[in-house]
């Protein structure tokens, strides 16, 4: 698409086109510049605050002595637990939608007329809608269901369950994408060899789709790591002077700590917030790097 291909003859038109392209390039650049400004500002304020004491201290009324230990540990436990819950369920749901419901009635076409096809269609629409539900409403669900009705209290487990439900639609969607990349010719070959459906899924489809599934799941979890609103509603604590000892312990989390420090009027605490943001962003960066590594490594192995 070079300008030379343009059949436009008139000079005025060419000038107008150049102007428009310049304008649209600027509108891509502006948000990216804002991003750079944001990160630069946070790094300048926060990087100097991050040291060993900051990482290993408990919150304090004096900002110089306050640290993020319980928040950091809380975030790690919370998201590891949530991932452990959501991964098997999400992958199983994706396998059902892609390999069973869809295939049972032939791809496309008649699928909707069978009861199973209808159910699958309902789940599909439902997942698309769930992905658009604001995260704070998952918090209300967690508060009503896990904290109150199931009696978990304002515990680590209640928080993890809430986050697990929150990222479930993303895990299902990512896993379906990954399953769809496995070529049908492999499925047909497995059928021709007399494989049952589960043998096909277990030995052919899953190994090939695994890199995509894991990458998608890590990215979904990295979204959960930054989630604040649902944890606020569940009742995460901002002033915790001990570490969680079990799943029923009260908990704190990095985003909650950032929210609390940002909302305080003293500049010292806002410096702390910037420091905690640096740690949070570093965590997200690590997770994303891990996703890329996992994909690269497993792809190499499956090709071998």
């Amino acid at each position, binding site marked *: 698409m070079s300008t030379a291909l343009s059949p436009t003859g008139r000079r005025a038109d060419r000038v107008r086109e150049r102007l428009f392209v310049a304008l649209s390039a600027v509108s891509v650049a502006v948000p990216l510049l804002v991003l750079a400004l944001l990160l630069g500002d946070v790094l300048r304020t926060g990087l100097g605050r991050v040291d060993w004491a900051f990482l290993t201290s408990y919150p304090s009324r004096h900002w110089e002595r306050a640290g993020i230990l319980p928040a950091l540990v809380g975030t790690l436990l919370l998201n590891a637990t949530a991932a452990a819950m959501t991964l098997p369920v999400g992958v*199983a749901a994706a396998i059902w939608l892609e390999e069973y419901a869809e295939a049972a009635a032939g791809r496309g076409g008649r699928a909707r007329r069978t009861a199973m096809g209808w159910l699958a269609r309902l789940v599909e629409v439902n997942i698309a809608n769930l992905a658009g539900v604001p995260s704070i409403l998952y918090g209300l669900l967690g508060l009503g269901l896990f904290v109150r009705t199931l009696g978990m209290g304002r515990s680590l487990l209640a928080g993890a369950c809430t986050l697990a439900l929150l990222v479930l639609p993303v895990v299902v969607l990512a896993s379906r994408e990954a399953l769809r990349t496995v070529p049908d010719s492999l499925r047909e070959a497995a059928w021709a060899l007399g494989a049952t459906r589960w043998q096909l899924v277990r030995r052919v489809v899953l190994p090939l789709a695994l890199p995509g599934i894991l990458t998608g799941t890590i990215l979904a979890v990295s979204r959960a790591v930054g989630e604040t609103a649902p944890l606020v509603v569940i009742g995460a604590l901002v002033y915790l002077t001990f570490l969680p000892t079990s799943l029923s312990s009260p908990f704190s989390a990095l985003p909650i700590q950032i929210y609390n420090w940002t909302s305080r009027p003293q500049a010292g605490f806002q410096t702390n917030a910037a420091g905690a943001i640096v740690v949070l962003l570093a965590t997200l960066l690590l997770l994303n790097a891990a996703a890329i590594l996992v994909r690269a490594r497993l792809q190499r192995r499956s090709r071998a």
Partner: protein
Amino acid sequence: MSPSGRAPGPFHGPATPPFERILEFGLVACGLLSILTTAGIVAVLAGETVAFFREVPVRAFLFDTQWTPLFADKHFGIWPLVAGTLLTTAIAVGIALPFGLLSAIFLAEFAPARVRSVVKPLLEVLAGIPTVVYGYFALVTLTPLLQRVVPGLSGFNALSAGLVMGVMIVPFISSLAEDALSAVPDALREGALALGAGRLPTVLRVVVPAARSGILAALLLAVARAIGETMIVAIAAGQQPILTLDPRSSVETMTAYIVQVSMGDVPAGTLEYRTIFAVGTLLFLMTLGFNTLGLRLARGAQRVG
């Protein structure tokens, strides 16, 4: 050969062993969990909301203009919260729509492949930053800057929160709109060019109109996103339910109210506790409406493309 003697057709395979049937039930159960999640959200919201309206008449909720459930003199008029939500949403989408749409046109129609492969991941970074970080940016960095330019800007204000939320939503609109533009068949572009139209008129008068339902879908989904956005407004827009459309003023959105009550220690079963579910129900209905419309339009657009 399959044990039952049934011919293994391409879509049936050998007869399913019993253990695989059980397994299949497990897979279906996992799929149904998503429906249970929706049912759970609806049940929790509906239960507490019904209890709320047993104490507060619907009339007071819809026609009062004050929202003061946490004060001694209680009023339950939802409008201040709705106005705060609409104000921040309008600012955010007002910023994000032109930027997002132009970005999409640039990426889909004009940018060389090399530029696109660099810019798209960068835009995704923008979408991956936690909202609490954007909230920090709005309150600590942007508001002081704006206060030098905008007279009468309060320390917590709708403007700063809305602007930052707009930046957050740009990649969302841009990626959906780019999908819509790319789905327009090349035959339309070639036809316009063959008729002697320049590239710019082709894009603006043929490609963009052909993608309009996909672009509208992006807009609706972005509105739903902005209405439900919580941390930016809770941090930077304030927690005062004032019925105003002045962007310089401190406002409280529906989501920020839920956060405000959650940060305090309101005991379960009280009327104050139930207000957050009533507000949550309204939030659910509003986002569901915009999402449903947007998803339907997006699907229709795919079919045409």
